[in-house]
């Protein structure tokens, strides 16, 4: 079997990066973002990138780092709050933004990965999102046509992988990582631990190895928390 494991993020992206790529990226807020791979994309200096990602990171985290270095031309995202540099570039017209409802974005990635170029959804009917889109009535209800995303590259963060690329995620860090992974022509995954085949339960694989082309162990991770909320023990 072809070797999928690379020593680090830069080598895993070797030969894959060029200006103007469409990159699908996993993560929700700062949870489950492929931070090693994003750092390596920044360090490569490629520019005019389009990112399909639920969020754009925060000021100096995640995709926010590539905004700071002006490597991003366009964002396809559902929510971009809590990011001052994004706001500045957006308001000055330096950055193009396509707002896409969160579920439509996830489904556009899933569809792209499943070889489906378009699908009809009722999300966004009668709103700005529907402008310029084909509509069709099914069973008396109006739907709009949304297009699948076929990305040049997918960047994904997972918990564990075996050496053949079977992947499992942890808790809510799964989020957009699965649909993003499937819609990339090439998918590069960073994980916290790489194990031998047989160590992951085949019945509990979240992303089968067929979708995963390159793999790195990016640990140790110092995972960031956006809003730290707690309760006291007795308030349960």
């Amino acid at each position: 079997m072809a070797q999928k494991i690379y020593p680090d993020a830069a080598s895993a992206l070797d030969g894959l990066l060029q200006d103007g790529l469409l990159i699908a990226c996993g993560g929700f807020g700062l949870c489950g973002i492929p931070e090693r791979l994003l750092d390596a994309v920044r360090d490569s200096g490629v520019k005019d990138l389009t990112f399909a990602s639920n969020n754009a990171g925060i000021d100096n985290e995640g995709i926010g780092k590539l905004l700071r270095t002006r490597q991003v031309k366009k964002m396809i995202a559902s929510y971009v709050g809590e990011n001052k540099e994004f706001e500045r570039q957006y308001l000055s017209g330096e950055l193009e933004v396509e707002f896409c409802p969160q579920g439509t974005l996830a489904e556009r990635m899933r569809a792209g990965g499943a070889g489906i170029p378009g699908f009809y959804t009722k999300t966004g009917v009668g709103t700005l999102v529907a402008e310029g889109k084909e509509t069709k009535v099914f069973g008396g209800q109006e739907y709009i046509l949304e297009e699948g995303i076929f990305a040049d590259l997918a960047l994904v963060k997972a918990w564990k992988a075996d050496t053949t690329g079977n992947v499992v995620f942890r808790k809510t860090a799964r989020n957009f990582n699965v649909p993003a992974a499937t819609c990339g022509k090439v998918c590069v995954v960073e994980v916290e631990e790489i194990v031998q085949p047989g160590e992951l339960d085949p019945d509990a694989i979240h992303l089968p190895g067929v979708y995963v082309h390159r793999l790195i162990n990016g640990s140790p991770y110092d995972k960031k928390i956006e809003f730290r909320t707690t309760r006291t023990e007795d308030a349960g």
Partner: protein
Amino acid sequence: MTTHDNIATGWTRDQMAARAAQELRDGYYVNLGIGIPTLVANHVPAGMTVTLQSENGMLGIGPFPTEDEIDPDLINAGKQTISQLPHSAYFDSAQSFAMIRGGKIDLTVLGGMEVSETGDIANWMVPGKMIKGMGGAMDLVAGVKKIIVVMEHCAKDGSAKFVPQCTLPLTGRNVVDMVITDLAVFKREDHNSPFRLIELAPGVTADEVKAKTTARYVT
């Protein structure tokens, strides 16, 4: 101007959430928006099992974690740390919105900037101001079985928020089933019927509600 301006009548934010919680039923799967809707979780009636969905990929949201339990891989859609429950389940974002769009979620409670008399809702964008995006709001109003909007009855400048037609860009068209404000509750039986004023907050009169509402409704 009525003499009731700035007088402490009507429901507080927490009381509005408690009123919304009266719409919960045993066994419901529910998605709560950010802000006042989040408070609804504190008012689930005793003995009732309600499973909360978080659109970033979880069913069965638990309470905020203790300091020792904090896990960066476990957050809600508001990006706050949370905890899991014995019956929790995790899934990816495509699966999460498949269950939302597919009509598997019974109820959502959302905040609103404006609701129209025909059930349109605007809650994601004010033209000319920074646009943050709609997140999952458009998917929720399009797919969830019952949509409750909880909002202040009037904007900060005193203007009505329950209006004949929304002036702000819509989140969804003809989708709202119930509106709970600090002054009153409006409900409609189906998406072809007008909203009916069904309840007044303590100390609030029907005349006061009428004076502060531009939407048409029945009583």
